[in-house]
């Protein structure tokens, strides 16, 4: 179950990186949130999982209502992004499963991969909607990472959920004026 959730987190992140339009971005965010929530659930942190899932779903729904039309998946020139998703997965796998020790490798893998992919999305894109969705994803990933901490992951998840939803409310078009 945890492996599937970790894979879902990576998949969601990858979709988020590879999508340029509202549906693709929403799907990516939702899948990633589901994966991260699954991992939190598997770790026995049900409220955290609920908050992450809720935040991701709300964010995804809101995202699906604004931003460029369509799916926008793997537009021409996406090869570097594909490479990024694969390399990130390999690197996160190495760190989460090989360098780090002990239980929870899927969670470690998922959080690393989610953070790197969402951050990468914010760094390389020029679309406002994509960046805001990535910010939502990043918030959820950070909150999921907090489950590794001994306490207070729920409050982090609540904050992350609010951010994930809030970022999706923000206008997807550049305001005018300086």
């Amino acid at each position, binding site marked *: 179950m945890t492996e599937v959730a970790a894979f879902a987190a990576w998949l969601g992140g990858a979709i988020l990186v590879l999508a340029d339009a509202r549906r693709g971005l929403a799907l990516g965010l939702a899948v990633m949130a589901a994966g991260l929530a699954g991992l939190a659930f598997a770790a026995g942190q049900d409220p955290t999982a609920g908050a992450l899932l809720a935040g991701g779903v709300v964010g995804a729904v809101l995202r699906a209502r604004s931003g460029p039309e369509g799916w926008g998946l793997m537009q021409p020139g996406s090869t570097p992004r594909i490479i990024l998703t694969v390399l990130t997965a390999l690197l996160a796998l190495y760190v989460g499963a090989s*360098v780090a020790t002990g239980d929870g490798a899927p969670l470690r893998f998922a959080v690393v991969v989610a953070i790197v992919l969402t951050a990468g999305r914010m760094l390389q894109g020029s679309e406002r909607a994509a960046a805001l969705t990535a910010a939502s994803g990043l*918030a959820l990933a950070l909150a999921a990472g907090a489950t590794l901490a001994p306490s207070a992951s729920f409050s982090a998840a609540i904050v992350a959920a609010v951010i994930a939803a809030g970022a999706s409310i923000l206008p997807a078009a550049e305001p005018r004026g300086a």
Partner: protein
Amino acid sequence: MEPELAVALPAAGAAFAAALRPRPRLALGLGALLGAGGMAAVVLSAPGAASNLLGVTLSLSAPSRSVLIVAAASLAFVVILAPQNAERSTLLRWGLAGLAGMAAIAVAPTPDISVLVLLVLVVLQATGPGRRPFVRRLRAPALAVALIGLGLLFARMPGPPSLARLGAVGLVAGLVAAIGALPYIHEFDPEEMTASSPIPWMAFVGPVFAVVVLTRARELLPSATGAFGAMLIGLGLLNIVWGCIASWRTELGAAAWRYSFIADWGLALCGFGLGVYEGQAGALLILYAILLGRLPLYLWSRQPLREKIQKDRPINLLVAAALAGSAPFAGFPARILLLRGATALYWPLALVLAATLLLWVPSSLRLGRTVGMPTGRQLLGIVIALGASAALGLYPQPFLSLAGL
């Protein structure tokens, strides 16, 4: 309930100020009232005392509390003596939003929440009106959030010591990216409004965030303290040298100011990196000086910079002295404390630091001129800023005691 109020009241003030934008006077009055209330909450809060009003344990450490108080004072100062052509209510709105965020960062029970709050601030600032596109404004601060997130993650992963060091890398790089120091400098447009430029990260939010991250990092990474300190010192020196030289040699006055902030941050990073009491105290003094001196002076220099007014009057020279870290201003005792920390740790480091301290002079002379010929409110503001800097320089003990040092 002080920590909760410290966040809620400024946030409410910012919200009201935003909502009442068409009526600036009302926005200003209400915002100021709520902001003052928030700050009263910060002042009244006992350092380290926890509050659990919302089901989350919130508390304010002494260093964070002191920087918050100084930041609030700086905001009040800037709003009351606002620069020419700057609308007070706008300044207050942005300032209160920042202050609420800073308070939230400071009172958060875990570093994860602090980072999440930082993300909120990043997104909010990037969505505001500005000359640069949203994505470009978001890029560097978002990288900071991601790096700190990764750092926290690595710090918590069980495994070899190299993981803890990677965690330290993430935290340090994230912190540097958050404040916009080298090598993660933010894109800067000299014509941009200050609130949407990288300056607030360096000069307003940065100090509190740095204090929080560094305090938490030492608790999280006890085994990587050496690497942590070494990185801070290395990056600090890099920022000192580049910041000072670039501030002196760069063509644009506003850019020169930006680099001068970077140079000051270099000094603060070195102080935090030393890991001894004196280093912390010196770094805090630098941060106070940024908040109470360099930031207001930068704001007051904007108009003369636009009008290309450069003067060498006594007030300009005093400003230059304050910026250069010359006695009796705040920079000098900060430098003494840093030298002491470095000497106690490793004297060649003190030698390097001492040599770099002279780099401030040429750029400060240049920056002093950019204040132009201040009159009226602006002159009063500069005199107060210089007075505050001199008070910090001659008798920093109360300010350090405020930070529990």
